[in-house]
């Protein structure tokens, strides 16, 4: 019983932090893009991010093939990780800034299977949204994939292991990984925009792009963290077997 109290205490602490953030920052301010819109990156930058993303995609495909070949049973869990990103990036949630943005949902798969597979699963979400919804774009797909399908998942993976090692609590580690991975995604987006549109310097642009969206995204990152912990709880409760299989896989193919 006592052991159970710790995550719950941490949870209520996070809830309080979230609420305070709201009350303090609850002013109306303009928001920043979730993904970079079609055509809104100069050609050179669009190409650069595409080229940067391709190796990660290849790496992700390789891990994906390897995992499904060695453990065909894990396919459903893979589908679940992709589906989670699919749902979460469709949920436009109102934020304190008076505008809407959406979480990314890439933290779960990154923690379960390692970050590289999310480069494939995450970019599937981006392609769906770029083609059918005119949300994001094909020219900006490389940049958006670098932020949402590479930077976010890798950050989530490292944060998960760092927090797990220091706190020893899976719940806290998953929460931090998902929430901070979400934030990293948007920080990278701001970075990409400020690199492409320095006014007058990259730094001032970054403050402009980053400072605005950060407020919108903080409560969403908290939501993403909570939802990821929820799914993680279900998995631990009903499918601890496959989680253990995954653990032994990740020990063998350590990304770090």
């Amino acid at each position, binding site marked *: 019983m006592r052991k159970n109290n710790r995550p719950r205490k941490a949870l209520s602490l996070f809830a309080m932090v979230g609420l305070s953030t709201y009350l303090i920052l609850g002013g109306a301010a303009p928001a920043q*893009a979730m993904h970079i819109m079609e*055509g809104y990156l100069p050609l050179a930058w669009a190409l650069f991010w595409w080229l940067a993303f391709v190796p990660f995609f290849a790496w992700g495909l390789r891990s994906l093939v390897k995992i499904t070949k060695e453990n065909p049973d894990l396919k459903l869990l893979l589908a679940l990780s992709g589906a*989670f990103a699919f749902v979460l990036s*469709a949920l*436009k949630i109102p934020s304190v800034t008076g505008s809407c943005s959406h979480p990314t949902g890439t933290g779960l798969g990154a923690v379960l299977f390692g970050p590289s597979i999310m480069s494939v699963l995450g970019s599937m979400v981006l392609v769906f949204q770029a083609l059918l*919804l005119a949300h994001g774009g094909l020219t900006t797909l490389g940049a958006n994939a670098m932020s949402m399908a590479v930077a976010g998942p890798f950050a989530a993976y490292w944060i998960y292991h760092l927090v797990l090692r220091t706190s020893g609590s899976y719940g806290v580690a998953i929460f931090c990984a998902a929430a901070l991975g979400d934030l990293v995604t948007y920080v990278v987006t701001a970075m990409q925009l400020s690199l492409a549109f320095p*006014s007058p310097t990259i730094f001032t642009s970054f403050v402009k792009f980053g400072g605005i969206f950060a407020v919108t995204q903080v409560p969403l990152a908290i*939501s993403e963290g909570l*939802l990821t912990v929820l799914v993680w709880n279900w*998995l631990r409760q009903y499918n601890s077997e496959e989680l253990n299989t995954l653990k032994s896989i990740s020990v063998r193919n350590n990304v770090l």
Partner: protein
Amino acid sequence: MKDQSTDSSNHQPLLSNKLKNWLLVGGVVALALIPLVIVKDGKFGGADDQGKETITKIAPNYKPWFESFMKPASSEIAGLLFAVQAALGAGTLGYAIGLYKGRSEAQRLPHHPVNQKIEQE
């Protein structure tokens, strides 16, 4: 109540797990609802257009050089497509979690219908 008995073998009592999960859901709902209450003059538009505006402000001469092939015909259609996306994801998620739950229950309860069927065969 049925779940409670199936989880008794676990070292963590399910009720607290369940409560924890409800707290998580409640937290997410609260986080989504609070802005609607406390932000009085919010338009709650998509962040897309505001992102575009920021670029236009910083670089007024920039012209987007590529257009989406297909744009949702109206905000209703966009809503539909977003709902389809969420439904596909949530359906898969529910299927997987449901399957895992049924499987773990079948393993824990020796007299579960699933096992009886196997015994008969």
